């Protein structure tokens, strides 16, 4: 029993410890640093695997101690937590491999990998947090540990982006804190629980609870890049590619979206939230963000900025799923948490590969890159089609479930939003794919070669793995342990029997 409670703690500690060791390593101890990084990542994957198995068998991994009078520090692993934890553990492993290759020979790597590990530890904490207080603890830790990554290059542009990032996220954190403290004043220290905790509150608390919901969503919406709080995200693109990948697919943006999901399902409870009537505005906001992000992505000539706006749009699918009442809609939103992660990380890995190998930053420079870098471009194409929602890829599963979930409860406008968004997705991704494969080669100013491979092998494998995951998640969606079936498991536990 005791060991069970300690597993979440170990999952947190293994990357914190890695961070502590890496910070003290001198810059030139590259091999040792890589070994520690990979070891910590592997251990984390193993621990998360154990916990996932346990959660499936209804084991309880809980840990709670009073950190301050009246509030507790709570870690707990439930099905939803394991979804996010699993995503971050697996993608961290891949991103670490990628980052080692990406940053080879560049300065300040001890600093980079130290904060990188801290960042993942925070993500793990967010996943396993058992109440809002604990969630907030790790949420702010994430902000702090990502700042050095965003400004890693130390240029004026990076520092400006970093300042904006901090301004947005800390203000969001303040709003979140206000919401949490208000909620605590209303109902005391409550932990996350499937089907929610607030069903039975007094009638006259409904209005304050609505306002609290607004504050919480505003605070979380900053990281989730909900319109109009998304301004920091495109600027943060100055960060190195692995950081962008992590920020968009796993850590920051997902932390916000995950937080909203937590608040809707495990704090308020989907039924109570519907009763309060707060979900409808949230849904509209998400829908608007989806369309807005896609429209803005159309006009971006910088590849990474285009991907950034695409993230703004795609993450809101998760929020939209949370706003749609009914199990099927829930599944659609939740499954996108994973699907968007693996698809978007593939795209960023590829973008990084183009930049590293051929110095490509603009969309028009991609002309003909497919022949020069076929494997990378294949991965990119696969992920882009996934984003558009082409069957049988992961994105299709999302959109299909989300759409049918909305239809079940009579929200036809959601289907319309999905259709518009898919068309817009196609409109900004298809030209890129066209350029990759069918246009003649651009005159690249610089080209690097690594032996027979089209690029450094540590840069090549991660996108290939994630791209194939995109395919597999779509093809085998009905098998156990696929993202879809895990999301269904969560949804089954979230609705009142």
């Amino acid at each position, binding site marked *: 029993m005791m060991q069970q409670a300690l597993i979440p703690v170990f999952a947190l500690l293994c990357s914190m410890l890695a961070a502590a060791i890496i910070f003290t390593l001198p810059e030139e101890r590259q091999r040792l640093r890589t070994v520690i990084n990979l070891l910590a990542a592997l251990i984390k994957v193993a621990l998360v695997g154990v916990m996932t198995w346990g959660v499936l068998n209804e084991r309880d991994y809980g840990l709670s101690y009073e950190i301050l009078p009246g509030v507790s520090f709570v870690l707990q692993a439930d099905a939803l937590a394991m979804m996010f934890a699993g995503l971050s553990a697996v993608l961290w492993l891949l991103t670490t491999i990628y980052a080692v290759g990406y940053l080879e020979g560049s300065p300040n790597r*001890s600093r980079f990998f130290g904060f990188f590990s801290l960042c993942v530890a925070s993500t793990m904490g967010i996943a396993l947090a058992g109440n809002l207080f604990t969630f907030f603890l790790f949420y702010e*830790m994430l902000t702090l540990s990502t700042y050095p990554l965003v400004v890693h290059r130390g240029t004026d542009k990076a520092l400006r982006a970093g300042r904006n990032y901090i301004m947005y996220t800390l203000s969001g954190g303040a709003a979140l804190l206000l919401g949490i403290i208000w909620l605590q004043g209303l109902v005391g220290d409550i932990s996350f629980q499937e089907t929610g905790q607030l069903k039975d509150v007094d009638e006259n608390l409904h209005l304050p609870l609505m306002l609290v919901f607004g504050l919480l969503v505003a605070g979380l919406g900053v990281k989730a890049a909900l319109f109009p709080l998304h301004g920091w995200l495109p600027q943060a693109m100055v960060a190195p590619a692995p950081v962008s990948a992590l920020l968009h697919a796993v850590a920051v943006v997902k932390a916000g979206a995950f937080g909203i999901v937590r608040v809707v399902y495990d704090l308020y409870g989907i039924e109570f939230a519907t009763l309060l009537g707060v979900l409808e505005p949230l849904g509209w906001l998400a829908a608007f963000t989806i369309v807005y992000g896609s429209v803005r992505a159309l006009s971006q000539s910088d590849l990474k900025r285009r991907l950034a706006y695409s993230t703004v749009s795609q993450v809101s699918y998760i929020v939209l799923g949370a706003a749609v009442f009914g199990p099927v809609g829930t599944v659609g939103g939740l499954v996108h948490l994973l699907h968007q992660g693996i698809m978007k990380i593939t795209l960023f890995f590829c973008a990084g590969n183009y930049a590293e190998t051929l110095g490509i930053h603009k969309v028009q420079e991609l002309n003909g890159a497919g022949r020069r870098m076929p494997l990378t471009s294949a991965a990119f194409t696969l992920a882009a089609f996934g984003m558009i929602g082409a069957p049988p890829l992961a994105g299709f599963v999302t959109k299909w479930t989300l759409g049918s979930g909305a239809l079940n409860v009579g929200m036809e406008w959601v289907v319309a939003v999905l259709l518009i968004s898919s068309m817009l997705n196609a409109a900004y991704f298809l030209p890129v794919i066209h350029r990759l494969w069918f246009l003649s080669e651009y005159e690249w100013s610089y080209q690097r070669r690594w032996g027979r491979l089209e690029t450094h092998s540590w840069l090549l494998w991660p996108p290939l793995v994630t791209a194939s995951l995109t395919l597999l998640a779509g093809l085998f969606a009905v098998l156990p342990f696929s993202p879809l079936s895990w999301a269904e498991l969560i949804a089954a536990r979230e609705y009142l029997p």
Partner: protein
Amino acid sequence: MSNWLMAGLLFTPLALATVSLLLGFRQGRALSWLGMLLQLLVSVGLWWLVRHEGGFYYTLAGWDAPLGIELRVDGLVVTFLLLTTLVASGCGIHAGFYLEPDRPWQRYFWPLYWFLWAGLNTVWMGGDLFNLYVGLELITLSAVGLVALGGQAEALRAALRYLLAALLGSLAYLLGVALVYGQFGTLSLADVAGQVRVSEHALLMRPALVLMLVGLALKTALFPLHGWLPPAHGIAKSPVSALLSALVVKASFYIAARVWLEAGVAVASQWMAQLLGVLGAVAIIWGSWLALCQPRLKQVVAYSSVAQIGYLFLLFPLTFGVEASVSLHAQQGITLQVISHALAKAAMFLAAGNLILAVGSNRVEALAGVSHFLPFSLFSFGLAGVSLMGLPPSGGFAAKWMLLQASMASGQWWWIMVLAGGGLLSAAYVFRIYKASFLERDEQDHFYHPDRRLEVAAMLLALASLGVGVSGSQVLSVMAMPFEEVQ
């Protein structure tokens, strides 16, 4: 047992001051290591004693109050004694390697340091209003001496300004004490507290209370009486600045809080409490804003003290006319704020000193590219900054959380706005430093790695300030240790 411990707390700092005056800097340093160890043992011993046998009154010279002087030892006192030991040792260790031992005036550092420590111990335990005054003066004069030690004109100017302000503050406090004595005929705070509750003329104590609070607020550098603090804390040597910001300003605040909680709440009025809170709130905003504008690193840290002190004064509105549980939360929050600010600010000043040593300049822009060298001190500075911003997981956050809870429960929502806004403003100046250190410059910059021991001292204090955040309940449990009335 208690005799030995009390003698250890009262006697050893004074004895060390005396002996180290007869020695040179290096021998004084060696002696001081021993003294720090002893203080650590004694304060831990006292903690153990109070935990098992409860707090007690200790009558000095064998004469009971009100004729004699009475010291009060309870959980809160033990908390502060432990904090003092931790912070003062950290600063002392840093100073031992930071100051240049061969300057003739440095031999006076250790005596002044130990006199300061003796004054702090006296103030934490003091139960006699006049004795508190003497303790305060002991602290003030040794602090001024430390600021001025061997200094140039700028340091002397700061020291003089500090001296004048602090003396005026002490005298205002003493005037309040004189009025209290005229009214109640006793100097023992416990007696005054008892009489205030039964006397029909208790409200006549108001002018005395106001005078004491104003005087102590001046010594604590509450806005708008803060003008003396930034020059003094900015110009002193870094370990001295650390001591001043971390402990010295807390001593006068501590007295104000004790007077307020034991006697003040019974006679004060709502507008007094709110006014003090408002001044604190303005200090938070104004101090943070000025910190943001400072071109020199240590001035940034010094102005941040002005802002952080503002938080302390939220104690007054949050404990006046509220339920006991809310008042308790507020007191716990303020205690955590005192502790975490002491640790974080000491760490920050020490780290700032190391950084200045490393880059050879006190200017913020000179930090460009420092993070490249991965100095420990920058990391310590950063961790301390986390606590000052009130972000988790740090003591500053724990304190903020408790204060937010108290404001929420007492319905004084306006302090919530102040707390949230203050956090953002402090983030602005802390991130300004981070930003400066991350900037990459092309030219080759000069960088010296300071002595490892200097860096470790700063790091340990910074880690301790984070530790308070993850063990808030444990820290507060020391404060809640039982007190048994011996009478």
